[in-house]
């Protein structure tokens, strides 16, 4: 082999390598995220993207802010239906699964987990309740928990102590008793934020506490007119009417924590996603406890809340290369790693989704300093699936509209309104049998 041939060979190899490097450089991950926090989510994601790019040469991440959860879902669907490319990865509500799976826009994470060396260890590190909404009825994992939350009871411990209550309520009867004792002319005893477009989530916790979740494991199972479901909404309505411990029609979502911090509400139901804000903003002792159990159960047996928040979804219509999909999966894995979950949880207040994250800094020290974080995590053992079914958007719309008309007093007969809604829901779900 002469010198020239070697030179040509080297040159070719160099070109190939260059070409390969070029091709790797070309992998750009479009990452869409909603901002549901008051933090600078864009800045945080840019920081994560920088960290990730440093560890993964040849992949770059392009974070795009897409509004609220609803805005994000609508933006992506409009883009994909209009022939656009859409994101590669997006944070969307865990309950959006069927809206995207039905259309064939997303692929299950299961195939990537199966291909991992330590796939079982990775997925089993997540709290089981947080995986419920991301998996289909056959147990395939589609989306990975990222910014998760549950509703939880916040109480003003100072006010409770003044009135002689040394423990938070553990069932609905105690809840009402304490709330009534703490209701004054300029203070509500209990605010449950069911006004403002999305009552279903808070309502679900009452339905669960009454003993019957409104959704089953299968995406065709909805139980919106069961006796428990009706009793739950009637109890919720009575808080603002007969019992008089909060505003008629329910409190507005956004105002509830602000009123609590201002001392104008003794107890509130709200998301654990608000824990950091409330702990740092309160000038009184903030107590956090499991949502009280319903009337049926003994103490501790009727606990329960739906899970909530956003998961990571992987978009592919079958056109993406193996290399691209691997890059996408490594970004998902990065965001769901204990290190990032610990950082994200500590910064925002979302429940870090995997057990190891709770032993990782900065979350480990924070949870030590504020035991309230641990309560949010421990309530997960009682948590149930958040409402999600086929045709989720439409069916949720029916449920939300029905709840709002019952809570605002427009529909006086809750049972009749819920029967009508269930009939509409059944006729939609019949298409999927």
């Amino acid at each position: 082999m002469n010198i020239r041939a070697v030179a040509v060979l080297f040159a070719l190899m160099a070109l190939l390598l260059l070409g390969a490097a070029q091709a790797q450089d070309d992998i750009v991950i479009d990452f869409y995220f909603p901002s549901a926090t008051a933090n600078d989510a864009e800045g945080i994601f840019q920081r994560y993207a920088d960290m990730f790019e440093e560890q993964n040469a040849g992949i770059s991440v392009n974070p795009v802010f897409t509004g609220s959860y609803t805005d994000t879902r609508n933006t992506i669907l409009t883009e994909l239906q209009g022939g656009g490319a859409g994101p590669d990865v997006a944070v969307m509500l865990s309950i959006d699964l069927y809206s995207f799976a039905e259309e064939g826009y997303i692929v299950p994470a299961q195939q990537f987990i199966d291909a991992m060396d330590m796939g079982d260890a990775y997925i089993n590190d997540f709290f089981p309740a947080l995986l419920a909404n991301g998996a289909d009825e056959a147990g395939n994992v589609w989306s990975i928990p990222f910014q998760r939350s549950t509703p939880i009871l916040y109480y003003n411990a100072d006010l409770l102590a003044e009135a002689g209550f040394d423990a938070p309520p553990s069932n609905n009867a105690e809840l009402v008793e304490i709330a009534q004792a703490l209701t004054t002319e300029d203070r509500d005893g209990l605010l449950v934020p069911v006004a403002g477009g999305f009552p279903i989530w808070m309502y679900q916790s009452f339905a669960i506490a009454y003993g019957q979740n409104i959704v089953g494991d299968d995406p065709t199972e909805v139980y919106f007119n069961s006796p428990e479901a009706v009793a739950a909404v009637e109890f919720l309505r009575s808080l603002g009417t007969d019992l008089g411990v909060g505003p008629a029609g329910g409190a507005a979502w956004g105002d509830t924590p602000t009123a609590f911090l201002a001392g104008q509400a003794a107890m509130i139901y709200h998301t654990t996603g608000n824990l950091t804000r409330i702990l740092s903003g309160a000038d009184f002792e903030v107590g956090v406890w499991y949502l009280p159990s319903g009337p049926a159960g003994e103490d501790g047996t009727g606990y329960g809340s739906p899970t909530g928040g956003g998961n990571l979804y992987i978009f592919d219509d079958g056109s993406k290369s193996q290399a691209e999909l691997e890059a996408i999966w490594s970004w998902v894995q990065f965001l769901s790693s204990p290190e990032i979950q610990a950082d994200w949880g500590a910064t925002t207040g979302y429940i870090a989704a995997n057990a190891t994250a709770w032993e990782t800094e900065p979350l480990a020290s924070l949870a030590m300093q504020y035991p309230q974080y641990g309560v949010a995590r421990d309530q997960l053992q009682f948590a149930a699936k958040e409402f999600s079914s086929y045709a989720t958007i439409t069916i949720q719309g029916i449920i939300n509209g029905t709840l709002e008309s019952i809570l605002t007093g427009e529909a006086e007969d809750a049972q009749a309104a819920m029967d009508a809604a269930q009939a509409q829901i059944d006729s939609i779900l019949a298409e999927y049998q």
Partner: protein
Amino acid sequence: MNPENRRINALVNSVKIAIAVAFLIPLVFTLLVSLRPEVEPVTKGNIFFGSEITLDNFERAIAIAPWGLHYLNSIAFVGGTLAVQLITVTGAAYAFARMRFAGRSLLLLILMLQLMIPSGVLLVPNFRMIHTLGLFDTRVALMMPYWGSAFGVLLLRATFREVPIELEEAARIDGANLFQVLRNVYVPNAIPAYLAFSLVSVSAHWNEFLWPFIITRSEEIRPLTVGLNKLIKTTDQGAFYGQLMAGTLIVISPLVLLFLLFQRQFVESFARSGIR
């Protein structure tokens, strides 16, 4: 002054003050709330000033979005839309006002369809069109659906028809071509109509949210309304009114200050131009 007029005058003055106060309250409280600590809603403590004055809300609001960039983007959006509109509208208005050609009424009718089918209603098909043209996430995509304006054509057509035809004939005799006729005869005689149209166009697109939100993804081209949406949708954590008010002030204050400084010139010139 007769007694009736005097009575009317007194009434007018009190109504005027009442309206001005009512209209200003939102602005005043936007400012006050933006300067209060976040944990102190107006219901707590002094309704006006709270316990202390702080710039925390502004610091946080500023950090949330590149406001300067959004501002420039909004200006580019409304300015670019208007600039092209003025050209397309002038030509079409002249053709419909002063030229005879086959199918004139039919074409005018087709144009008028735009008034009845607002493009805002057609989000999905318009998205598809922009995507087919390969313009998704570009400045052009933002503006393009608005570049043709039937409203502007009708408004200017009516104005052009009032320009004495003799002026055009005189210019033509002097050898002016179409462009010169438009520039020297029609445009100067229609300034009020142009102003009115510009005001309508600019204020409509300055408000635009849904279309820019759906058709853009890059911060580099997104307008103010999309930036502001970030502060509104802090949904998981509820309302941060201090921060929201600070952000709103950041968004509105340049224009409001400009108007405050130049309101006389603005209103007077607009009024003097004699829109009818």
